């Protein structure tokens, strides 16, 4: 997909408001030890969209997400967050990042409440005790993920699914409007998956921008407005989320829509499709 068509899409999707897109990625190249992992990716995430970056392992989807947050540096290209170049972006309280796992580190205990409250780091003033509004936001985040009863437990005593809920609550605690979640459903039992899906649905209803990195769309599929599939560090699909049964869900396939935009979403079957097997 060319930069021009991305720009057109951005114009079409951002709606009547003139707010800049939540994320604007132009020709992003990322390399680890000089081995390129992303080969010039363009991506525009309009505000309020629920978008999934899909792809098999090694497709570069996590790298793209990390580059969008400045966790990994770009070799070339640019990222803008809410209209500000990433390097100069300071309003980190608007971004809620949910990593794939809670790391145990050296095993120093921390309570659920401590971890959730640490999500407010970008909003809190230095050397101040927490204000009542801060504590209210933490309570709200704990309630939203049904964690109030565990607030005083150590996070390391919880199950993987419960820890995932803690991580989402941590992202919620700063009351951001943009969420970036890395595989929130991976390794989570069905009961916790339902709790997570409910929380993400509530965020969507509040008009939040939600960017999900997913191996497969799975139980979150009904929530997704758009799917961007990556393969070998390039965007190979951008449009409606591929059905799990559909051809484009198969890993290792280039799925090219000549017009991967709203028209394609309206009548996908009327358009010619080209399946190109891809060798990595």
């Amino acid at each position: 997909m060319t930069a021009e068509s991305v720009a057109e899409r951005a114009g079409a999707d951002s709606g009547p408001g003139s707010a800049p897109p939540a994320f604007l990625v132009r020709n992003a190249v990322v390399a680890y030890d000089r081995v390129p992992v992303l080969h010039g990716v363009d991506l525009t995430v309009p505000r309020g969209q629920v978008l999934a970056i899909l792809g098999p392992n090694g497709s570069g989807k996590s790298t793209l997400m990390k580059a969008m947050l400045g966790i990994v540096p770009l070799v070339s290209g640019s990222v803008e967050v809410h209209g500000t170049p990433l390097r100069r972006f300071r309003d980190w309280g608007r971004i809620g990042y949910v990593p794939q796992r809670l790391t145990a580190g050296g095993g120093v205990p921390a309570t659920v409440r401590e971890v959730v409250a640490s999500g407010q780091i970008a909003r809190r003033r230095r050397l101040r005790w927490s204000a009542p509004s801060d504590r209210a936001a933490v309570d709200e985040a704990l309630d939203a993920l049904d964690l109030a009863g565990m607030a005083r437990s150590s996070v390391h005593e919880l199950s993987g699914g419960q820890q995932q809920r803690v991580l989402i609550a941590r992202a919620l605690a700063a009351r951001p409007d943009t969420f970036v979640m890395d595989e929130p459903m991976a390794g989570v039992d069905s009961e916790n998956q339902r709790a997570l899906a409910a929380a993400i649905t509530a965020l969507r209803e509040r008009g939040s921008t939600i960017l999900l990195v997913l191996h497969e769309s799975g139980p979150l599929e009904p929530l997704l407005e758009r799917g961007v599939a990556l393969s070998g560090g390039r965007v190979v699909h951008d449009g409606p989320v591929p059905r799990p049964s559909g051809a484009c869900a198969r890993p290792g396939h280039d799925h090219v829509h000549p017009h991967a935009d709203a028209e394609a979403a309206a009548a996908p079957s009327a358009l010619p499709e080209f399946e190109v097997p891809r060798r990595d």
Partner: protein
Amino acid sequence: MTEMLQYDFMQRALIAAALVGLVAPVIGVFLVQRRLALLGDGIGHVALTGVALGYLTQTSPLLLALAVSVVGAAAIELIRVRARTGGDVALALLFYGGIAGGVLLIGLAPGANSATLTGFLFGSVSSVGEEDVAVVVALAAVVLAVIGFFWRELFVLCQDEESARASGLPVRLLSLVIAVTAALTVVVSMRVVGVLMVSALMVVPVAAAQQLARSFRVTALLAMAIGLLCSLGGLTGAFYVDVAPGAAIVLLTLAVFAVAVAAGYVLRAATGRARVRADGPSPGPDDPGTVGTMPQTERGSVSR
């Protein structure tokens, strides 16, 4: 007790020991969570080079140890980020370089030999002068102030470095803050417990506290209390039994650790039983409440 306090050197030693016991676990709690528990030890070896340099140049060994160990701490951060080595390998390089540099330089210094280094290796409480106490007080105040200032940021950094970056935190700077305050702490502790035991006072009280606590804050406070009591207790015991104070302090912390492990087992078993009674019949061994966390795969290294 009063007999001990009649000696000026014991008064000075007790002040220094109390400060070390209080300060070392504060930085230790972050080092343990970052899986850099041995960083203090590595820096301690580099500090020996500084001590030797101090004797060689006929200046203050303590101040040169301070300068050299701060440089060493910064170097280890640089090695971790720039060179393709894990945190443990970077530490190993520091260990060997530091001890070799110390032994080499002390041999060149007039009127000093490797026995001089032994005082710094194992601590020599009786040689703590008034100037040393002043330096220790100042450095302890600096370390506590810096850690207090950055407390929340350091908590986020040590929980998970990627989230710290995604919160806009200056990860490199904060990593450097931890390394440099660790270096300060090592020099603070060097006179009292000796280089070889500095890391023990940073790590063992934390290891003991984390058996008993459920929150990060309580772990830190409990570790400080354990460090303080063991420092004073070890020094007092060493005075009356006439053994090496540094060794006495460290062995006391290890004893506290052993007790804490046992107490932690009993405590968890008791709360586990209480929970089962409250929740009705136990769901069995595959209770979803006790799935282990994923261990951090990259030990103490910086994500790219």
